[in-house]
């Protein structure tokens, strides 16, 4: 993951400047600025209610009814993975993957995407016939089949069990290495953020409270000393005190 940090430079794909979002009298995002480079994997941490989803929705153009201001540049080619898989129950798996994809070779690309997430052979299943993890993999395939420049994900693995979540991390890492989208991953899970991201942001009080580059080579080991340091640093920013990491 860290490998594609250096080589790819140029204009950032995402540029957010003094973004303000309000719900009634409450200002949730207060002059927030943020750039994401091409192909960069950014994880966004923050307390519940800190405005993570609000920020992500602003970038997915899903907040036309929300009052606010600011400059927002995002690529046209972006896709969103939601916390729920959000598959249309009346469409079979393959139709869900290529849903809204208006290309002659859509079906073929859909099959390839399903194969990438390890679901070939299930093209004709109904969504209700899949397990939660499989559904989320279909959602991932649906996002990737569009070759997005930006992948927005709001706690995509939040509803999955710990084991499935670890598998999904591996899968996401592989897929991102191959397709090289810029990623903004909203998560509650500090370990998930540190495992996957090139850069971890902490959102607090309407702004970016911390911006930490993860300089651990991939694949990353949770037991690694540097991993532990970054974890406690992030937890401090999130207002959780941890015991100092004991030197091994």
């Amino acid at each position, binding site marked *: 993951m860290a490998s594609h940090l250096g080589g790819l430079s140029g204009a950032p794909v995402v540029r957010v400047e003094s973004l303000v979002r309000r719900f009634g009298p409450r200002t949730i995002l207060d002059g927030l600025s943020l750039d994401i480079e091409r192909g960069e994997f950014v994880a966004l941490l923050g307390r519940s209610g800190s405005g993570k989803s609000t920020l992500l929705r602003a970038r997915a153009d899903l907040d036309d009814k929300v009052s606010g201001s600011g400059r927002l540049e995002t690529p046209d080619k972006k896709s969103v993975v939601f916390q729920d898989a959000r598959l*249309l129950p009346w469409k079979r798996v393959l139709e869900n993957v290529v849903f809204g994809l208006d290309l002659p070779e859509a079906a073929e690309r859909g099959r390839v995407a399903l194969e990438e997430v390890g679901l070939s052979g299930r093209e004709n299943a109904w969504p209700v016939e899949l397990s939660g993890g499989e559904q989320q993999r279909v959602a991932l395939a649906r996002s990737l089949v569009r070759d997005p420049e930006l992948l927005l994900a709001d706690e995509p693995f939040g509803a999955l069990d710990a084991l499935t979540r670890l598998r999904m991390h591996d899968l996401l890492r592989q897929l991102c290495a191959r397709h090289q989208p810029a990623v903004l991953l909203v998560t509650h899970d500090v370990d998930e953020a540190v495992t996957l991201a090139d850069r971890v942001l902490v959102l607090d009080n309407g702004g970016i409270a911390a911006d930490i580059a993860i300089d651990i080579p991939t694949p990353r080991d949770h037991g690694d000393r540097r991993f532990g340091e970054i974890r406690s640093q992030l937890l401090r920013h999130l207002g959780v005190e941890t015991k100092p990491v004991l030197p091994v």
Partner: protein
Amino acid sequence: MNAFSNTAAVAPNIPYATDERALISPAAEPRETGTRRLALGRTIPFGALIGPALLLVIWSIGSIAGLIDPRTLPAPWSVVGTAIDLIAEGKLQHHLMTSAWRAAQGLVFGVLIGTILALISGLSRLGEAIIDGPVQIKRAIPTLALIPLLMLWFGIGEGMKVTTIALAVLIPIYIQTHSSLRSIDSRYVELAQTLRMGYGEFIRQVILPGALPGFFLGLRFAVTYAWLSLVVVEQVNATSGIGYMIDLARNYGQTDIIIVGLVVYALLGLASDGIVRFFQERSLSWRRTLAD
């Protein structure tokens, strides 16, 4: 007729209550005394036929024993005989065709108009403002109460009959389709938006399939309403049709013909509900898998 037993129709297929028991070895048997099964248990094959068959038996025995006056209720076999005679004379088919044709026309017009109104009012605020009120008012007036007015407007011919049926049919189609349209999960709307889907495509791929369950539920009501209105309009004023046949038989005290007419109505109702259910299950197979 229970046009609404959507789930009841599929639920008995769930075999858990009994099949699980078969897997338990005899040693584990005592466990059963402690746990009381709350489910209904295994379904009875052709269970739906037992009740009607029992009625038929009682009817036959009553007729043989002379407990039932044939002028009140003729014996089953004499009803069958009358039906055979009517078919041989070609009368039954003729009346049946007339009735079925009326119901079909009313149904088609009613379903078309109801669906179109539901779409317009479901997909736009302006459409809803214009259409929903009048439909709710129409809904509050029983269709059959409109017959005198419709007779003045359309005369006593086929136009009046088809209009009455169509008016009755349109309401459930509208109500169910509209509410189903409006209750489509906003998360799917969001999804379509993030996939930059066009409006036409969005309607075709999300709105219409999402409204289909409501449409079919409405259709099952609609079919029932169509037969119901048919019965009434045919007895108000007609020169052919099953209702006319029944009305004529009443004048001559021919109870057997009345019974034949009623049986035909029952068969028509059951058959049409069966047809709708067949299409419903086929088009909503993505949902049926849940119940299986």
